[in-house]
């Protein structure tokens, strides 16, 4: 049932407009009720639930092998990393030892996914600001990554490549060569990103000193990922709580101290370069061996509670499994980064212009199915 406030209401002399659920700027079915005074935002009220598919409940009726694939539909842009988080949690419960080859493949795929996600974010954010061309330039690079994924995983968006104990199948023979080709292409084209968008005066004016998020607020609202690192909060799970082989790899946690939209933008751009660094270290050093640990056909987690977290392209994704010892989890809870990041929108948007709201939503990198689940 609709509540009365979900439809347009007049609030005194203020103009109330509904951005969404169908709106070009929300990139999904997010509904924002915005109270405006002229062009200035007085209040932003997000309404969720338009794409709620009760994924958590669905997971509870699926076996441990099956439910991983449902999570691809949460944050579809980093589907791989979602699967990774679930696989990690199950392995923690089973106490499985993962072969080094599988670990390397997982990290490689994670970082490729991160780059692909950031590429799409970059294009979509520029489109929010009214520049259409960067979208196509971003897709030129992203397309090569999806091709690599398609070859090895069999799918382009919802890869479903992770299984408890490793990955589903071995890498495609041409994987290494294709990734190297991608690295060459990426390095040849990345300067276009700066020339086309980052260095643009209009773009910088739109981004700088807009949507300031202080480190304290970032922590108290639970903002994670690049959005928090733009405020100078160290929160990269890969560094703080390393999983797989991240502690053996050389890469930096990207931090900006600006706290505004431009800082968040720069964090993501620089993070792509860090991911490239990780891929470069791994691509020639993938250990030989099994790509999957030996597991039983039917997995049963011991009675207890298990929690793991990973760094997705948007922030910290936590997976919490309560097991009663059966073949299906008793309860599953996902701590999705998008939900917490959205919660800060009202705080940073107050007092700025309507055009800025779009820029802020762009730099928070919201993926709506991740918020609603």
């Amino acid at each position, binding site marked *: 049932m609709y509540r009365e406030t979900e439809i347009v209401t007049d609030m005194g002399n203020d103009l109330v407009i509904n951005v969404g659920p169908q709106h070009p700027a929300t990139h999904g079915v997010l509904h924002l009720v915005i109270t405006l005074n002229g*062009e200035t935002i007085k209040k932003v009220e997000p309404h969720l639930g338009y794409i709620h598919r009760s994924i958590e409940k669905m997971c509870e009726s699926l076996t441990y092998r099956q439910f991983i694939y449902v999570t691809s539909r949460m944050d579809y842009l980093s589907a791989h990393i979602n699967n990774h988080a679930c696989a990690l949690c199950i392995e923690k419960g089973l106490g499985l030892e993962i072969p080094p080859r599988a670990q390397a493949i997982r990290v490689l795929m994670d970082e490729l996914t991160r780059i692909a996600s950031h590429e799409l974010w970059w294009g979509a954010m520029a489109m929010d600001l*009214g*520049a259409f061309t960067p979208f*196509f*330039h971003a897709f030129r690079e992203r397309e090569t990554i999806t091709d690599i994924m398609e070859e090895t995983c069999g799918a382009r968006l919802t890869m479903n490549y992770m299984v408890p104990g490793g990955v589903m199948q071995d890498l495609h023979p041409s994987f290494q060569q294709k990734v190297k080709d991608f690295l060459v292409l990426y390095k040849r084209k990345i300067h276009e990103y700066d020339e086309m968008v980052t260095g643009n005066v209009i773009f910088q*004016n739109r981004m700088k000193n807009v949507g300031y998020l202080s480190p304290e607020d970032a922590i108290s609202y639970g903002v994670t990922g690049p959005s928090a690192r733009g405020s100078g909060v160290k929160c990269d799970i890969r560094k703080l709580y390393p999983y797989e082989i991240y502690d053996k790899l050389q890469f930096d946690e990207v931090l900006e101290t600006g706290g505004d939209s431009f800082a968040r933008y720069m964090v993501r751009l620089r993070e792509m370069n860090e991911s490239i660094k990780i891929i470069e270290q791994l691509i020639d050093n993938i250990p030989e061996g099994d790509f999957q640990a030996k597991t039983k056909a039917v997995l049963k987690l011991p009675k207890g509670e298990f929690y793991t977290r990973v760094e997705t392209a948007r922030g910290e994704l936590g997976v919490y499994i309560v097991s009663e010892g059966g073949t299906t989890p008793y309860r599953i809870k996902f701590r999705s980064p998008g939900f917490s990041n959205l919660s800060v929108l009202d705080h940073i948007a107050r007092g700025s212009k309507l055009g800025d709201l779009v820029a802020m939503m762009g730099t928070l990198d919201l993926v709506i199915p991740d918020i609603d689940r």
Partner: protein
Amino acid sequence: MWSFSNIANQLHYWLNDHFSPTLTLIIEMVLAGVAVIGLFAGLGLVLVIMERKVSAWIQLRLGPNRVGPKGMLQSLADTFKLLLKEGMTPSGADKIMFNVAPFIAMIVAMLLLAPIAFAKDFQLWDLNIGVLYVSAISSVSVISILMAGWSSNNKYSLMGAMRSGAQIVSYELSAGLSVLAVIVMTGSLQVSDIIHSQADGWWIFKGHIPMFIAFVTFIIAVTAETNRAPFDLAEAESELTAGFHTEYSGMKFALFFLAEYVNVFIVCALGATLFLGGWMPFHIGNWEGFNHVMDYIPSSVWFFGKTFFLIWLIMWFRWTFPRLRIDQLLNLEWKYLLPISMVNLLLVTLMAILKWHF
């Protein structure tokens, strides 16, 4: 030599031979009207396909390539589709205003075609205040946008219309001031006089740096006046869905769309006329030989070449720049462009008095 004016004269004599003078006048007016409507539709189609091809070229795409040779008939097909669509009027809308607004936009665009010289001696109406006429009529177009935004009964439309109103009223100032620079140099508001004054070189070259500054401010201001990106706040897609024409569909939407493109053509034609010599070939002072060679290129080619170069420039802007915010947009005009063009006008006036130009 073959030219538009010869054809027009032949037609005039032929009509005079066969009909009474009154009937001739009426027939000529009807023909001119049909020509304007034809030009309006033709320009719309050409510019739409041009925009799509230019954007495709910038965005690493192919663009429309199915209908006709290299997709050149795509916009014709789109027009047919839009003609056949139902013209919806939202239930809460002010019906009369809602339905009249697109026609005002169209009529304004058509009226503006009158004083433009398309080629040597080929002009519908060479009135003595041609440039003033253009700036006067073009400011009427904001009324159609305000009408559309207000009558749609949609908050997005209303905000788009208000933005557009603020924007067009502001940018008209610096557009007017940069046009004044040319008028000060020429001493006439008549389009043909302005073109003839550039027979020994275009104003952008003859007028030193101040004239170039006037040209740049003119291009920025008219880009804003025609609501094109990076100043497309009136229809800011990612903020206001489609701004003032959110509620329009079918042919009524197409009229806004066509009017926008014809307005782009008109301001570019005006820019070409004022600063780049209109149909006047590229002449350098009294280099007789060189000027003579340049005269061999037909005047219509010169005019359309210059105009489409400027249109291409404006399209290039659109597909490269992000959009400005409303306060930045107004800051740009009131804090930068307006003072610059005022000082610039002073410089141009000094130059005109002291005869420092070539």
